[in-house]
Every structure is written in structure tokens, then in C-alpha cells.
């Protein structure tokens, strides 16, 4: 920019001066007060941006908290699998060494004993049982039975120790043997309602009785934290006795000289004597359930011991994770691919029937004079004011074998009384009912697009010599496509995740994948599988949306 009017007479900063200055120095464009123009623009816009953000903030937070986060959490469950390694930490660690052939080593059974014993005390072993039951039928009852049976193993040792010395089944002697004296002093002053001094092991006891120390500590902390009992008053559970036997069998404690030395040394001698009865953990498990010596269950546990699994997703597509790799499920257990296909097929059918029914109505709506159009529009919107459940139930009344339509058909003689049509509890019923329910979602976008097509286009086409059909097909229809597109995408996405209507009128053959998801959420409680199915459904919708955008272009979709 050159200044042809001569030297500037204003020294004060003006927009013109600033621009001239910027030109002279070849620097960034400056605003009137000398700051760079970009900076002052950003400053001016910042306030607007903050205002805009503040306006949408409540909704944003609401959506985030009530919608995005729960959905994210649900979707995460489709791969989450910590329950196996959390509940059976020792066993899964020992299983890593195992190659999967034959029965697993004793270390695995030992780990499983302590893990399941603790889990049974916490009453969470059945949860793991039902988790593994998804992968191997029978696991659930096996785990439930084992929760009770594992006591038998420890009681074998406890009874023998108790026969030797009553103190082995008393709370206080155990506490003195294992606990820190200072802790015992504090704990004995504890009164119910106060917070308990946290249990600490006596110095050196973990070196001579490592397993017992670990188990007793587990027991003591569990009593303190979960049951709110004092370990000084509770006799230890039988897993502690089992651990004591293991420690005594492994180490020579004749030189022990701490508290309760006589009791411990006597027990050590008892264990060393040939009369002492013992059995391996494997034998113990075998007594509970024969299946525990079958490598099958151990392979399953090993397979699902990682924290994250693809198992749910594989299940969702009728595959399964086996020790031999990913394999298709047996023919008679395949269901989900078929359900997905059915959902897609029926959603397409519904979308298509909606297009067929909605197009003439929308056309009529957009071409009627305003008064009649308003009346028709009210009729279109009427279903929106009626409960979804009522509308669906109405279809039940209409379509059932003793229903209105069949009665009429029989009455006019089109159908014999003994061969009434089956129109409900199948795909036909679902398609009819859902087409009816979703029809307004197709009509409204179509109408809003069609009402913007000026009638002069039709007149122009006719004046150019086009017949009514050519005018419609070459001129009107192409311009109404955005409305069809918008309606279709709306109806398709709504129907692909529809639940209530297929649940009520779908029967066995007309249900959607969403009904299966609901089943897993509320009945079978297999949330991981439900989440995986939901994630796949979401992915399918997103892929279709993407494809739609590529083919039709989302810019062409007009909703109003």
C-alpha cells in the first residue's frame, strides 16, 4: 500500500498509520495501538470463545459424565479380564511354567489352594467361576463346590495339630506366635468401634515360617479390615494350619526359642513323625472334583490369565479362544453373526419400507397449501405423542392370530379360520411395527428438503418438454435425495439399535442384536460379552456412517 497523499500529518497511532508502519518495516501488520494485528484479533476473539464455551459447559459436562464416561467404561469391559489374575495370583503365576500337557505341577495346585481359599473367605470365588463358565461350561459349579471343599484339606492338618495341643485352635497363642508384641499390646486395648492398630508380623517369624506368616497375615488383615474382628479373638482359618504343616515339613525348627517355642517344637516333631497324615494338594483337589485333575480347566485358566483378552470379541463373532488358537465355535453354538446379519437386514428392510411410505406423504405435505399441510403434519406427528409401548402393543392387537387384521381377513373370506396368518412374533411383525414407529423420522427430513424445492423447477422441466415422469425422475427426485439420505441414516441408525419393539413383537425370529445385549446385561450378567457386542454394533454404525459420507456426502444431508 502506498500513500499518494503526501506525508502523514497525524503522529498518533491510527489504523492507517499502523498499516503504513507495517508496510515500511515489512513486519507483521500492526493494530492501531501498535500490537501485532493477529495478537489483538486473538485477544478480541478469546472473550467470545470463552463465552461460547461457558454457554455449552453445563451440557458438555452432563454429556461427559452421564454418557461418554459410562459408555467408555462399558466398552472397556469388553477387553478387561483382571478377575482371573486378581483372584488367583499364585496359581496363574505357577501356570506360566506349565506347558499345558498332562496334569499341572503341584505348585499350581498349591497356589490354587491358597488363592481359592482366600477367595472363598471373601465370597468371590463364584464370580470367577461364572467368568470361566463363559469359556468352559461346568466351571461355575466346580468353583462353587470347591469353595466348601477346600476346608477339608486344612482341617486334616488342623485336627492333627489340635489333637497334639488345644492351643493350635485358639486365637491368642497364634497371635503371640505370629504377631509383634507391641501390636498385641495395642490390639488388646482395642474396643469395638475404634479403628484397629494394623497387624504387623513379629520380627524374624517370616524367615522361619514363611508360608504360615503369609497366610496368617492374610487372615489377620482380613479379620481387621473386612470382618472388623480382633485377630486376638478369632481362631485362624484352616489354610494357616496347612501352611504351618508345609513350613514344618520343609524346615527344622528344633532350635526355635521365641514365644510359644514348646508348642511349635512339639508340632515340628509331630510332623516329622511317620504317623502324621498328609496329602498333596492335587489329591485334595481331586477329592473335591474329579475335573480338577483334568488339564482342560487349567488350560482355560492359563488362557484367560492375562489382564486383557480378546475372548469376548471372539465370542461376539462366533469364534473362541482355545489352547490351540482361535477357532470357530461349534456349529450349534453360533448365534451372533446370524444376529448381526439379521439386525442389518431388518434395519435395511425397515429403512426401505420407510422410504417407500414416507416419500409420497412428504411430497404431498410439501405441495399442499399451508392449511391442509399443517393438518397432515399433525397427523404425521401424532404417533410422537403416544407412548412407544402403547404403539407397539397396538400392533400386537392388530397382528396377532386372533387379532383385528386376521379377523377381518377371515370375515371377508380371504383366509380360512383354521389357517390364520402368523404376523406377529416374527420378522414380519417387527418390520411392520418398527416401520410404523420410525416413519416420522423419515417423513420430517424428507419434508424439510422437499419444501425447499421451488415449484418452478417442475414447471421449467415441463416447459422444456419433459413428461411428468421425466420431470419427476430427472429434476425433482435428484433434488430430494438429500432428504432421503438424511431420513435413511436417521431411521437406519435408530433401528439398528432398537430394543423395545423387537422385544415385544419379535418373538424368536424377529429379535435384534440389541435384545441379546440386553439379555447379557440383565440376565446372564456377562457384561464383557455385552460390551463387546455393543462395541461391534457401534463400530458397524460408524463404518456405515463413514461409507455413507464417502458415497453420498454428509454435506448433502439436510435435516431442516
Amino acid at each position: 500500500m502506498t500513500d499518494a497523499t503526501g506525508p502523514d500529518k497525524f503522529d498518533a497511532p491510527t489504523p492507517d498509520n499502523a498499516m503504513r508502519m507495517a508496510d515500511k518495516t515489512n513486519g507483521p501488520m500492526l493494530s492501531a495501538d501498535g500490537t501485532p494485528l493477529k495478537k489483538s484479533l486473538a485477544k478480541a476473539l478469546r472473550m467470545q470463545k470463552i463465552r461460547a464455551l461457558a454457554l455449552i459447559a453445563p451440557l458438555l459436562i452432563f454429556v461427559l459424565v452421564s454418557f461418554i464416561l459410562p459408555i467408555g467404561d462399558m466398552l472397556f469391559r469388553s477387553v478387561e479380564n483382571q478377575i482371573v489374575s486378581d483372584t488367583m495370583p499364585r496359581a496363574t503365576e505357577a501356570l506360566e511354567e506349565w506347558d499345558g500337557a498332562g496334569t499341572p505341577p503341584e505348585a499350581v495346585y498349591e497356589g490354587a489352594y491358597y488363592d481359592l481359599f482366600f477367595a472363598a473367605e471373601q465370597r468371590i470365588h463364584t464370580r470367577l467361576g461364572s467368568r470361566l463358565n463363559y469359556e468352559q461350561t461346568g466351571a461355575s459349579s466346580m468353583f462353587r463346590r470347591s469353595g466348601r471343599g477346600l476346608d477339608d484339606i486344612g482341617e486334616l492338618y488342623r485336627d492333627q495339630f489340635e489333637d497334639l495341643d488345644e492351643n493350635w485352635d485358639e486365637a491368642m497363642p497364634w497371635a503371640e506366635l505370629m504377631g509383634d508384641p507391641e501390636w498385641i499390646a495395642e490390639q488388646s486395648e482395642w474396643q469395638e468401634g475404634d479403628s484397629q492398630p494394623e497387624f504387623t508380623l513379629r520380627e524374624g517369624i517370616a524367615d522361619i515360617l514363611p508360608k504360615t506368616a503369609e497366610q496368617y497375615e492374610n487372615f489377620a488383615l482380613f479379620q481387621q479390615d473386612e470382618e472388623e474382628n480382633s485377630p486376638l479373638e478369632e481362631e485362624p482359618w484352616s489354610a494357616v494350619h496347612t501352611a504351618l504343616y508345609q513350613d514344618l515339613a520343609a524346615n527344622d525348627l528344633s532350635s526355635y526359642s521365641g514365644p510359644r517355642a514348646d508348642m511349635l517344637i512339639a508340632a515340628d516333631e509331630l510332623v516329622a513323625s511317620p504317623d502324621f497324615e498328609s496329602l498333596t494338594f492335587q489329591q485334595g483337589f481331586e477329592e473335591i472334583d474329579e475335573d480338577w485333575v483334568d488339564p482342560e480347566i487349567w488350560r482355560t485358566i492359563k488362557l484367560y490369565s492375562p489382564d486383557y483378552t480378546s475372548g469376548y470379541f471372539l465370542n461376539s463373532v462366533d469364534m473362541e479362544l482355545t489352547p490351540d488358537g482361535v477357532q470357530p465355535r461349534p456349529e450349534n453354538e453360533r448365534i451372533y453373526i446370524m444376529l448381526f446379519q439379521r439386525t442389518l437386514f431388518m434395519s435395511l428392510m425397515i429403512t426401505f419400507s420407510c422410504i417407500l411410505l414416507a416419500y409420497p406423504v412428504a411430497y404431498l405435505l410439501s405441495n399442499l397449501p399451508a392449511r391442509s399441510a399443517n393438518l397432515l403434519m399433525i397427523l404425521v406427528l401424532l404417533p410422537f405423542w403416544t407412548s412407544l409401548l402403547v404403539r407397539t402393543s397396538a400392533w400386537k392387537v392388530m397382528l396377532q392370530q386372533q387379532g383385528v387384521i386376521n379377523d377381518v381377513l377371515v370375515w371377508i373370506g380371504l383366509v380360512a379360520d383354521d389357517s390364520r396368518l402368523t404376523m406377529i412374533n416374527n420378522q414380519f411383525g417387527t418390520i411392520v411395527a418398527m416401520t410404523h414407529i420410525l416413519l416420522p423420522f423419515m417423513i420430517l427430513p424428507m419434508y424439510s428438503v422437499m419444501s425447499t424445492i421451488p415449484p418452478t423447477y417442475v414447471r421449467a422441466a415441463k416447459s422444456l418438454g419433459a413428461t411428468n415422469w421425466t420431470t419427476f425422475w430427472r429434476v425433482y427426485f435428484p433434488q430430494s435425495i438429500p432428504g432421503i439420505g438424511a431420513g435413511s441414516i436417521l431411521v437406519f441408525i435408530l433401528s439398528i439399535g432398537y430394543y423395545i419393539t423387537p422385544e415385544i413383537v419379535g418373538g424368536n425370529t424377529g429379535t435384534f442384536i440389541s435384545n441379546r445385549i440386553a439379555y447379557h446385561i440383565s440376565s446372564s450378567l456377562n457384561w464383557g460379552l455385552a460390551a463387546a457386542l455393543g462395541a461391534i454394533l457401534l463400530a458397524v454404525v460408524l463404518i456405515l456412517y463413514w461409507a455413507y459420507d464417502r458415497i453420498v456426502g454428509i454435506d448433502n444431508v439436510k435435516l431442516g
Partner: protein
Amino acid sequence: MPDTGASDAFVAFERVQKSYDGETLVVKDLNLSLPKGEFLTMLGPSGSGKTTCLMMLAGFETATNGEIKLDGVSINNIPPHKRGIGMVFQNYALFPHMTVAENLSFPLEVRKIGKSEREKKVQRALDMVEMGAFGGRRPAQMSGGQQQRIALARALVFEPELVLMDEPLGALDKQLREKMQFEITDLAHRLGITVVYVTHDQTEALTMSDRVAVFDDGRIQQLAPPDELYEAPQNSFVAQFIGENNTLEGVVKEIKGDHCIVQLDGGETIDAKPVNVSKVGERTRVSIRPERVEVDPQLGPDAHTLKATVKEFVYMGDIFRTRLQVAGNSDFVIKTRNRPDQRRLRPGEEVTIGWLTEDCRALDAG
């Protein structure tokens, strides 16, 4: 151009009536015929029935009564797409989902014309409106003036003998409109097509047409070439509607052949040419064009003159527009050319005005 008889007329409306609601007539007894090659404009205020007439001719409205003939054949029952009439719409009505070339090709396709010939004709039509390079564009990518040319080319590409235009220049700015007015008339005359043009813009009507039909209240008020329409309006509506006009009201005192004397309501008497008055004592509205009024006139001894007071003087460049108070009418306007010796009147000045008898037309009382 002489009014041709109905026998050799190319387009003819015969006693055509149109009613939408069965109670009122929008078009009342329309008789109109135009020969081949004529550029006829239907001019009138909105609601005067001109567009309805055009739509009846195009076939989008049916005549309630009477007959419309094209080339001697009644077209009342022929659907629009078989009439072979080209049409240009006010908002162009170019199909937005087709390119310019596809738009032009459309009327040829529906006539089943071969591809190579189609392309030739489309290109020729585009060249005709100087838009040869725009075939690949979409209508939305062009300016209003460009779209207008394309709409014109599309209406002409299938070589219709009759083209209807419904206020085609209404959406353009003034300069472009004037340019297009010239181009459209030029094109129409070059191609020898018959054009029926609807507008409410009188300048457009006067500059473009061979003849103008002035519509009001469902009737043709006057059908005449532009100069006749301006200089010799047949009734006070036409006089008012076409161009600027001064009116004075009064009663006919005396009629002598093509001369009459009118006594104005203020008592003054003036000379006028009787057009729509037949007997003494009738009320009349006399009409004088602003540019035909003379200040301090040099007229014959018998001529009547009027006293006037200058109210306002407006300098408009090529002309001066002076508003006067004359015989109780304070909206009496005179226009004088901006010549070096022209007097510039000042507000408050008292002047004498007069005119030639034939310029002052005694019309109906309205």
C-alpha cells in the same frame, strides 16, 4: 405494427376468462392476438392478471373459459410439455444438480435428439449468449447475470417459435438489467422468435417491446406500440401507469372536434384534446406529460394559460425537475432540459405555464 386478425395470428387469446375460486375473475374477457415474430410485453401492477395469462399460455394454468390458440390450433387441452413453448423464469429455475451443459441438453434429451447433435446445439446456444466456456459449471457457481443468460439459452436451445419470459430481469441490478434488455431484444429479432414478456417495469416494457399490453384489473387497458402508449394513453390508468404524468380534474365545458375546453375544479379553464370524453358536463381527468409543459409559453392568442407557484427545484443532471402548485394541485411536475439558456426556477417564484392542446388529453375521470 398493425393488429392482425385472428385468422393469421400466431398466438391468440379468444374471450379468455380465469377464476381461481369460482367467485372472482382474475382475467376478464381477454382478447389478444399477436403475429409471428412479435415482441409483446404484458405490463401491469401485481395482481393485474398478466402472469396468469402467461401461465395459461404456457399450460400451467387452465383457462376457465374461452380459447387459447397457437398457430391456429386450440391448445387448451394440450399439456405444457407438448406445447413446445420456451420459457424463462424469474428466478431462472436452472436445475441445481446439473451442469450448465446438462441443463441445456435436457430439453434436447427429452426430444430424443442424438448425442452429437445435442452437443452441437448446446454449444451453439451457449455461444449465442456468450457463455461458451461455462458448459461445465454448476448454476450455483455463477452470478445472477450469467445464470440469466444460461436460462435464456436453455429456453432457446430447442428452437421454439414462441418464448415466454416471466419477469426474467427482476433479480438483476440496474446496469446489468439494461444490458440484458438490449441483448434479449436483439436476440429475439435476430432469431425471429415470438416473445411474450411479462414485467411490471414500464421502462423495460417501453424499451424492449414491439407492442405493450397494459393490464389492470384483469383486462387489457391498452394494447399499443410503446410510443403510442406513452404519448397517446387511452385512459387515465394507462396515463398514470406509464411514465410520469400530471393530472388535473375538472368538467368538460365545450367540445369542438378534437378540441375541448375543460373547467378545472379551481375555476380555471384549459384547452385539451378529448380522448375519453363524449359530452359536455362530463367529469374528466386531464393528463399532461411533464416535459410537454412550457413555462412562459409563446402560444396563440386563444390559448389558455395557468398561473403557477414554484414549490421545489431539483437539479438532476440532464434535466431539471420543478414541482409547481397549479390549480390547487401541488404535485404538478415539469421537466426541462439542461440547456445553457434554460431558466432555473426558484421556489416561491410565480410563473405562467401552458401547453399545446394535443399534448393535454382529457381522459375518463378514473
